[in-house]
């Protein structure tokens, strides 16, 4: 259940600028940094992400006790002692929240990372090699693309006795790469018709070298944005799985918090503090990353900047 809200290639508006022609285009990283710091979407999105990341990283410092420990009276609304209130079992929601952020970031980075790796590998090879290789990879991509990934994940998770964040990320990564592969393939296809690719081949560079040294750097901003979208998709997919009840068998996650909240009647009991923070956390992370992406796009793509 990857959800690319505007997969960079779908809207050609997101395609990297065909930089290169006359003057006035992006010069050096210096100029990029200058525009990056002035871009409110980028700075704002990044701040939110970093803040939450920091909270997750500093979880043990922020809360004295493990996330699932019973620390107070149950069903308490937020108070000075328990910022986000307590659960039915007297667990501190804030403690669960900050620890849950950790697994959210982990699943995003791992799942998004695996998906990005597979997607890029498939996209680069299909786009650059063309021919039968492309046909076959394209076919595989399309097959995985139409398979509803949450359903596949559910089936896989159902038979896993031991579910950790890593295994979950692995399966999410393996099901959510296709749109990235398509996007990377399209970009690669258009770049590999450029003369500098031929020139690199004439300089004795092998296929892998051409991809790594010539094609990838040209779309580095694009690849980075693709990774961010995959990260967001992985976070949402993991949340969905956790919510259904296929979360990590041990530990805590934001999706699992929502699962428990619903399971133990938080809705009917009006315990909004139990299910609002985890969802808000996910929305904030994913939303901030998407907004950050728009900012990045504006920085990398001067055409949008002028809008």
């Amino acid at each position, binding site marked *: 259940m990857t959800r690319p809200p505007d997969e960079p290639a779908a809207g050609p508006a997101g395609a990297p600028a065909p930089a290169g022609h*006359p*003057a*006035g285009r992006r010069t050096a990283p210096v*100029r990029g940094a200058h525009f990056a710091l002035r871009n409110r979407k980028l700075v704002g999105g990044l701040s939110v992400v970093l803040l939450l990341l920091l909270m997750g990283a500093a979880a043990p410092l922020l809360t004295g006790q493990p996330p699932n420990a019973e620390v107070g009276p149950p069903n308490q609304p937020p108070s000075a002692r328990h910022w986000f209130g307590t659960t039915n079992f007297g667990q501190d929601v804030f403690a669960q929240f900050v620890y849950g952020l950790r697994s959210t970031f982990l699943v995003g980075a791992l799942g998004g990372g695996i998906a990005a790796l597979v997607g890029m590998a498939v996209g680069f090879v299909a786009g650059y090699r063309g021919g039968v290789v492309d046909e076959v990879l394209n076919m595989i991509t399309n097959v995985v693309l139409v398979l509803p990934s949450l359903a596949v994940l559910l089936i896989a998770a159902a038979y896993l006795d031991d579910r950790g964040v890593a295994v979950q990320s692995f399966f999410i990564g393996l099901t959510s790469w296709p749109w990235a592969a398509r996007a990377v393939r399209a970009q690669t296809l258009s770049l590999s018709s450029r003369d500098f690719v031929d020139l690199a081949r004439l300089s004795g560079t092998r296929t892998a070298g051409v991809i790594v040294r010539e094609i990838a750097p040209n779309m580095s901003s694009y690849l980075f944005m693709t990774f961010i979208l995959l990260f967001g998709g992985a976070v949402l997919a993991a949340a969905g799985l956790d919510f259904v009840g296929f979360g990590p068998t041990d530990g805590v996650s934001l999706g699992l918090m929502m699962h428990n909240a619903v399971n133990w009647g938080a809705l009917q009991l009006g315990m909004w503090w139990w299910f609002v923070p985890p969802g808000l956390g996910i929305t904030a992370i994913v939303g901030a990353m998407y907004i950050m992406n728009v900012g990045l796009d504006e920085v990398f793509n*001067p055409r949008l*900047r*002028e809008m």
Partner: protein
Amino acid sequence: MALQVSDLRVHYRTVRGDVRALDGVTFALADGEITGLAGESGSGKTTLGKSLVRLDGRMRHVGGRVELDGRELPIGDSARMDRFRFHEVSVIPQYAMSALNPTRRIGTMVRELLRSRGIGHRAVRPELERRLRLVGLAPEVLDRYPIELSGGMKQRVVMVLSTLLDPALLVADEVTSALDVSTQRAVAEALVEFRDRGYVRSMIVVTHDLSLVYQIADSIMVMYGGRLAEKAPADALVTAPRHPYTRRLLAALPEPGVRHEDKRLAGIPGGPPELLDPPAGCRFRARCPLADDRCAEQPPFTEVAPAHFVACWKAG
């Protein structure tokens, strides 16, 4: 005088600042005159062509006037300019191959365009078909989608559509540069034919190819660094150029039959000036073999012979 451009200044906004793409351009165009506008890339020729029809989002009208048949064209005001477009001034854009909406039948697009300009489609249709036949297209192309036509066919459709309302001024921007030699000739000759038949009163043909424009133009303007260097009747410009830039440029063009062993031609050393912050005085000064101190002052664009204008102190 069909067209009178006086001291036109148009700037291009970029992230680094304003590029002075047109920095004081003055010329006149007579009724029925086809003028070629030649220059290197970055000389401002395309900007000049565009600014007479439609300034794009990054172009800004900074100064100067454009008059067509004595009426001022509000080139800086897109909404007011709309009244003139298509009817009075029209364009065949550089991108003619992709100028048609890919998902509309050509005839439908023409009809919707005409209706949006308040013109009855019925009244114009016979003339449209006649003109399509004139450029060698069957009227059935109107039932086709652009993807069904070849590049040359699309080019001709755009040519007919742009001139359908008999505009007083047509700007043809690099209309032949994407075409093969053999089709190039047909398109160029069609432009002349359109003028002869009165479909277009006068015409500015923007090009980087002097020899092509010489074939069809009555007069030729040479631009350099955002200004006009020379404007003269085509023959005079080619046989007796006055501006050192024009001379060097013509000398750098190989003709069929010229071989480097027999006659080694030479280019113009150096490059065109940066228009972000152009140097004072004559823009060609840095590359000009004749330059001296006087050239630090900007030479006026003066008439040195009948209809022959030059911006050079040495041209007198």
